[in-house]
């Protein structure tokens, strides 16, 4: 049940109608049932994993809070983390590690035949396990109190707008909203509507259109060359942004119309002027999670230059692994680690050499933005490629002599619409680059506001791609 499907539209209308007539207690119960129905529509068998995670963290949260003994608190935290990571590791990483251990042992002449699992990856598993872990971690750090209302806690874990692909909410933010009575106002409804509309536009009009060219190129890498890869990789940079930020917009919008405030997950990442800033704007819910629960516990920037950079590198590497059990994601994470560390070193060196403040002018800002986009896009090659061989082939081709631009296999119209879509996204998001809420379609004048609504709605109808494309981040 995708957000951009008719089935979801009908599902949400029913849920929302019930939501408006029920009181707070029954709203939560109904939302919990709806969330399980929503998840069960993909594969009801994996609901059991959500229940295990929910019950485990519910109990561990209370036990951590009640225990005065430090060892006991650590034991229950350990149990919570072990439980969640075991579920994640078993379903997501078992085959990957088994295959790599088999290869490694093979290098030393040891032959092993591990039993590979024949299971599909439960949708959204990386998101909800991280979300529930943040709950026990925050209680352990005494940053919040546990709830004793199991059903409300279960709703925090399974809240359908953000269950499948985030934002990875913190218990500190979402759980109090579950527990308290929410108010649905016209302003919230309209803001939510605008978020949904813009998210839908980015997904259906831009991301899915870009995907046609990207898939045609990345699906047949050995048939293409230099310019084609540059175009396809640039398209992918916007495809993944519009796909994922579009989903996040819709998730936030759906929650907003029900009175929930989910965290902003993207803040115009391609306007970032350096890689560090990029990570402050890209998938904020994950990057801040990794910062709070991995980078800082590792020591953060408190233990000298070398250890700080080591911590950054480990965090980015594990961030890459979080995306999937594939060397392509690990290399992608490592590359970002190298970028951040490299940028820090280069910046420090530059500051010593150039003390002129004028380099903060508009041209240097634009240049920095462009360079950041280029290096981020180069890393996307690893993220999108089927395997490392393909990724290195693309990289080699990009830096080789220009040959042939692939346009025949996909109609020229697709490329034209893709470029138009990218331009619209850049212009709209540039206009509201200082807007911290992500509500980019808001206009003060009613005439302008209605005109924008109609433009976006007709844009979706007229330029949308309706192939039922999955959101890219569902696979993580």
């Amino acid at each position: 049940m995708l957000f951009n499907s008719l089935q979801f539209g009908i599902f949400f209308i029913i849920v929302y109608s019930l939501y408006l007539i029920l009181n707070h207690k029954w709203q939560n119960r109904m939302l919990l049932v709806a969330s399980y129905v929503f998840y069960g529509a993909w594969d009801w068998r994996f609901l059991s994993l959500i229940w295990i995670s929910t019950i485990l963290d519910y109990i561990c949260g209370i036990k951590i809070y009640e225990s005065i003994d430090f060892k006991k608190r650590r034991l229950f935290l350990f149990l919570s983390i072990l439980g969640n990571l075991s579920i994640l590791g078993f379903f997501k990483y078992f085959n990957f590690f088994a295959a790599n251990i088999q290869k490694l042992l093979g290098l030393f002449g040891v032959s092993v035949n591990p039993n590979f699992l024949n299971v599909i990856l439960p949708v959204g598993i990386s998101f909800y396990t991280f979300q529930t872990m943040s709950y026990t971690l925050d209680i352990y750090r005494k940053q919040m109190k546990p709830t004793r209302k199991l059903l409300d806690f279960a709703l925090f874990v399974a809240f359908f707008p953000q269950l499948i692909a985030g934002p990875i909410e913190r218990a500190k933010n979402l759980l109090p909203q579950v527990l308290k009575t929410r108010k649905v106002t016209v302003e919230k409804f309209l803001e939510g509507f605008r978020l949904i509309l813009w998210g839908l536009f980015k997904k259906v009009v831009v991301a899915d259109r870009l995907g046609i060219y990207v898939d045609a190129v990345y699906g047949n890498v050995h048939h293409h060359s230099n310019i084609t890869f540059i175009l396809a990789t640039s398209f992918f940079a916007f495809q993944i942004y519009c796909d994922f930020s579009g989903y996040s917009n819709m998730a936030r919008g759906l929650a907003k119309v029900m009175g929930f405030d989910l965290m902003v997950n993207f803040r115009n990442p391609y306007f970032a002027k350096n890689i560090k800033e990029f990570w402050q704007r890209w998938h904020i819910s994950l990057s801040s999670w990794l910062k709070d629960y991995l980078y800082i516990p590792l020591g953060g920037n408190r233990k000298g230059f070398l250890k700080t950079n080591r911590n950054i590198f480990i965090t980015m590497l594990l961030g890459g692994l979080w995306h999937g059990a594939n060397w392509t994601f690990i290399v992608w994470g490592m590359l970002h680690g190298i970028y951040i560390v490299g940028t820090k070193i280069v910046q420090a060196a530059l500051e010593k050499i150039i003390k002129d403040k004028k380099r903060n002018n508009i041209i240097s800002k634009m240049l920095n933005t462009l360079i950041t986009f280029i290096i981020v896009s180069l890393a996307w090659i690893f993220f999108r490629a089927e395997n490392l061989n393909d990724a290195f082939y693309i990289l080699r081709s990009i830096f080789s002599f220009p040959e042939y631009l692939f346009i025949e296999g996909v109609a020229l119209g697709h490329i034209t619409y893709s470029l138009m879509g990218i331009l619209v996204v850049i212009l709209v998001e540039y206009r509201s680059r200082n807007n911290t809420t992500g509500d980019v379609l808001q206009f003060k004048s009613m005439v302008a506001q209605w005109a924008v609504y109609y433009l976006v709605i007709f844009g979706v109808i007229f330029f949308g791609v309706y192939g039922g494309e999955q959101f890219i981040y569902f696979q993580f």
Partner: protein
Amino acid sequence: MRRKFFKVLIFILFFLVLDNIFYMGFSFLYQKSRFNALKQILMEKPDVIYLGNSKFLSGIMPEAIKRETGLSGYNASANGSGIVFAKGLESVILSYYRPKIFVIQVMPLSSERGAMSRLAPYLHNSGVKNLLSYYPYNIRIKYGLLKTSRYNSMLVVIIKGLFGKLDSQCGYRPLFGSLSQKRSRQVRSSIETNFPAQFGETLLRNFIEEARRNQVEIIMVEMPILKQEKNDGYDTYGNFAKIYNIPLINLSKKSDTCLQSTKEYFWDKFHLNNKGVTVFSAVLGEEINKFIKNNP
């Protein structure tokens, strides 16, 4: 509360009005577009209509066949097409006039790319409307409720058709250049609509029977390809050809016997180039001639 409700109502009403205005505007411009195949067909009323996918689009030159047969023709093929598109276009064409022959390519029966978006401007035709009933209900609702959606992704076609140069010759789109390793025409399968094979067979039967009812002859053609692979639908087309006594011309076999070196005639492994099209169109022209002599 009443004011808000009134506002929402106005918003929806105005939306419906705009939907109809845009629909009429697009409809008008599409009729003017030179890329509107039906407009060309109705203007020229050719004797033969060629229906197929990209292999046919770049592999059949109606002018070359006319030189052999004396029959005027129009290549109404479209990229990624299958039997759904052929059936829809047949219904639309027959509602206006009766050509002498439909030459249909042996093409997929169970998958199709963009058929309904190309047929959507003709949804007023009952044949096309019937085809829509086989699609998932979300597609049916989209086309049924929102008229603008009938021109989904057609802006480039409309603008290019109004101002651009018409690069086709009676519908035929030439591909220049010879076989190159760097070419691949594979696009992702996810933008295709998949149907049960049974549905495709029903449509093929309907296609043949509707043509027969209107006294239009049918010729089936299997196009040559360099990549040696069996066309899944070939046996089904063969069976129908036997049942309905329709000639099935296998140009793929002709390529083995008539041509020594085929590589120079191909743009890629699946598509003929501008050299190959003249050779194979002549071969097809001879076959059509034979058919006409046997069926005066």
